[in-house]
């Protein structure tokens, strides 16, 4: 296989599928997608890039990656008419993983650019407080506040790669226990969330060595399980 830069767009081809989890990675022009794709492929998934709503059609799981600012990201998602489809996906109980900005966009709003975001998780994205250096760049420990399949086989306090200046804090009030991991850089902040079908990590598992690859593989395994029991998720919401 000799693909150089960029990835195949649209639905997976028939030979790509063959029983593998089909993951759509939302491409809204926010940086490096190669490493996310590589990590998902290494975990046994078939990956396609989603640039328009139709690209989500053949997918079993959705990954929203991205670095950078919330304002331009929301504007680009809006232009691509992807906001409705993403909210619909999440509302239907289908597997979602947000990475870095893809997690921040789940909150109600971001102080960065004073942007209103997707509103899936009650709470705000705010600049890290008390941080000795910003952006928070480098490897830092993630303390797991409870057990979850996402961290299966990964030591509590394992190092993951971060690069960000803002983070979202679940505000509560929606009867869901979002907080899954916390990290300290000056102050402490939420570095991983999970509730039902929605997972999010503030760090970059696709750039976090073997533990990162393990986390991506855990996501693929978890999503495969959920993708095969759609009726359960739907029933749970009803």
């Amino acid at each position, binding site marked *: 296989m000799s693909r*150089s*830069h*960029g990835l195949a767009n649209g639905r997976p081809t028939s030979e790509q599928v063959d029983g593998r989890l089909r993951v759509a990675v939302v491409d809204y*022009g*926010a*940086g*490096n*997608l*190669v*490493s996310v794709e*590589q*990590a998902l492929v*290494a975990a046994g998934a078939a990956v396609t890039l989603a640039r328009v709503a139709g690209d989500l059609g053949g997918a079993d799981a959705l990954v929203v990656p991205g*670095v*950078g*600012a919330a304002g*331009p990201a929301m504007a680009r998602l809006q232009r691509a008419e992807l906001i409705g489809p993403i909210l619909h996906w999440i509302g239907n109980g289908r597997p979602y993983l947000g990475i870095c900005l893809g997690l921040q966009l789940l909150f109600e709003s971001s102080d960065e650019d004073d942007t209103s975001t997707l509103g899936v998780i009650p709470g705000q994205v705010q600049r890290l407080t008390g941080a*000795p*250096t*910003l*952006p*928070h*760049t*480098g*490897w*830092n*420990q993630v303390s797991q506040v409870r057990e979850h399949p996402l961290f299966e086989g990964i030591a509590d306090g394992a*190092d993951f*790669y971060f*690069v*960000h*200046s803002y983070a979202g804090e679940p505000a509560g009030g929606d009867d869901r226990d979002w907080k899954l991991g916390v990290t*300290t*850089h000056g102050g402490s902040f939420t570095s991983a969330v999970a509730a039902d079908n929605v997972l999010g990590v503030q760090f*970059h598992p*696709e*750039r*976090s*060595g*073997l533990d*990162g*690859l393990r986390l991506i593989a855990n996501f693929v395994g978890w999503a495969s399980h959920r993708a095969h029991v759609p009726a359960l998720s739907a029933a749970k919401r009803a």
Partner: protein
Amino acid sequence: MLCRRVIPCLDVADGRVVKGTRFIDLVDEGDPADLAARYASEGADEIVLLDIGAAPEGRATTLDLVSRTARRVFIPLTVGGGVRSVAEMREVLRAGADKVSLNTAAVADPALVTRCATRFGRQAVVVAIDARRVHSAALGHAAALASGITNGGETDGRERQHRAPSWEVMVRGGREAAGLDAVAWAERAVNLGAGELLITSIDRDGTRSGYDVALLRAITSCVSVPVIASGGAAGPADLVAAVVEGGADAVLAASIFHRRLHTIAEVKLAMAAAGLPVRLVPEAA
């Protein structure tokens, strides 16, 4: 607690990793993707790949190289060399880089730093500064700029020797003075949108005489973004000094790793022994 990073640097020319002394006398050190993969498995926290040829006609080769390297390592990849526009930065990121480092292009067009940071976020923009010490005997324009002295000022030779050292910014692979004070340019680059600084001492580069700790301290004491120390590493003690005395967040080295004089694990164990938080991977533990 945020770990201090150890970063092997791959200087690439014509698709091969090379290493010189004070930016000249280049020696072939191997294939970039192979070396990057080796370092990733040995516990590197990040890879910096600098295309030191970076001629416009070589862009396709560079992108292919970035793509090839990014597919083999699951740690962050910073790429520098030849990026002069937002569109070129986008190409490099899409090929698989996580960050792009700007050097000569940022000096020539400081607004480029802001445009790139606005488009991709400041965390993706590294400004690389090649700094050369300005000796008091030949007090240069840069030092005069730094101290605000013009036209003779009120200093004599003796006072100059007592003054804190200063450094000037060099561009075009260290061949040309930019007429800027390195510390002032570092501060300005951060204000323009740089999310990280890569500070190379040209005087120390490839000499294995230790990092220029005074240069690092001068810069880390006036910026809040992470600073990567570069140029002069001879052994683990130098990397420790760059962090402890220089205030660097990350230490970059090339020849000591390429030539297997020291392993990444050795360096990290020395840093851990000095009380610095580091990420010890299974291979390095």
